């Protein structure tokens, strides 16, 4: 179903493209997973790769009338090497694409995708592969359900509107929690991965300032930015400690910034 085209050292990162359905129904949607498996310490890059690297790209060839209506990428992690900060995926990353079938479909539908990425450890090399598959096909349902469940657990969820208020303060954005923390719960760690490049200072750590059970997150901006951001749009990762343990909340935040 796939072929790994090139790379100086092959098999550091491999990709499988798996449709999460065994048949296509006219007018209905289904998902396709691209499962990246990375050897230890090797990584690929997130949508905004940070200060180096490039994001993974997918060039789809879909049957006539089919469209991709949504795509999902796992939450990244922050990687600092030699003072350079990047946003990466390591070990396993499952991208998901939701495809909508047209109202009328043929007996067999053929899909292909060209995937290009940059894989790095202490050295970097380009990776690429082409994948083709047809539907319908015979695939065990539990396998697909497990894969989808594994994928969805790593995607950030939309943050409820109004739960944070973002304000611009000179060279940083202050994000203030509008909801009091429950007693005994503490925000102990936070990170922010912006979708916008060249606005946020990705090289400085995101900081927490807590007061009276309301947390404020401080996100530095680049002094060389062209203009101030109008909204805070990215992935916010919050680690909460409570007597029950640590809970990690991954959210997509898209909050207007008050000047």
């Amino acid at each position, binding site marked *: 179903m796939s072929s790994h085209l090139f790379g100086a050292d092959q098999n550091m990162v491999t990709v499988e493209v798996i449709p999460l359905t065994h048949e296509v129904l006219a007018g209905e949607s289904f998902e396709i997973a691209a499962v990246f498996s990375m050897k230890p310490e090797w990584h690929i890059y997130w949508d905004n790769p940070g200060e*180096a690297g*490039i994001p993974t*790209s997918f060039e789809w060839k879909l049957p006539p009338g089919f469209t991709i209506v949504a795509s999902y990428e796992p939450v990244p992690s922050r990687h600092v090497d*030699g*003072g*350079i900060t990047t946003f990466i995926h390591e070990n396993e990353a499952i991208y998901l694409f939701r495809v909508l079938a047209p109202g009328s479909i043929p007996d067999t539908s053929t899909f292909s995708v060209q995937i290009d990425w940059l894989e790095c450890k202490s*050295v*970097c*090399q380009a990776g690429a592969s082409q994948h083709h598959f047809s539907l319908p096909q015979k695939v065990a349902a539990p396998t697909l359900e497990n894969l989808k469940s594994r994928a969805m657990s790593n995607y950030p969820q939309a943050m409820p509107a109004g739960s944070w208020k973002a304000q611009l303060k000179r060279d940083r954005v202050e994000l203030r929690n509008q909801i009091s923390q429950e007693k005994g719960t503490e925000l102990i760690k936070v990170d922010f991965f912006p979708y916008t490049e*060249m606005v946020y200072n990705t090289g400085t750590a995101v900081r927490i300032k807590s007061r009276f059970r309301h947390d404020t997150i401080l996100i530095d901006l680049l002094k060389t930015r062209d203009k101030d951001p109008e909204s805070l749009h990215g992935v916010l990762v919050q680690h909460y400690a409570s007597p029950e343990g640590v809970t990690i909340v991954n959210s997509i935040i898209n909050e207007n910034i008050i000047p």
Partner: protein
Amino acid sequence: MRLKHILFTVLTLALFVNIGLSKEIKIGKKAPQFTLKNVNGVVHNLKDYRGKYVVLEWTNFDCPFVKKHYNSGNMQMLQKKYTDQDVVWLSINSSAPGKQGNFSPDEILKRATDHSAAFSAYLIDADGKVGKWYGAKTTPHMFIIDPKGKIAYAGAIDDIKSTNVKDIAKASNYVATALDAALAGRPIETTITKPYGCSVKY
């Protein structure tokens, strides 16, 4: 006396901290001055090139993005085109010893010869000081310094972030566009872009 000593130490420390953390290059501001040696041990001082346009090209011959521009002949073409117009082109390597791109002088000379590189000099910044003064993040990462010693451009070599050689012909080359404008006495329209490439191996 002791107070003066403490004050001096604090001020000196502050100066070094400021230099070390100087990661955000500002267009129109003075380019950080530096002195680096080339592969033959010859010293190159940036201030010696005052009065000329200077291109700084952060490089690592083993990085796929640098390979894209060198294997295609694109980088050499730019080097030749603009050094023929009296631009000084300095390729700088800031890879730390033991890291990708940190080559022996013989290897550098071999690679440069194999590529028919046309830079004015290949400078070695193994401790990464100059790279960090400029905030060099990627290979390649390009800077243009004007004849007055000020930063005129900083960022990517072109506008297609890929390792695909076929993208070079389709891309808009920021460095060429900037130099063509500057050498013709026109203002540079795009002065700062996000660089793309492998991380500099500090």
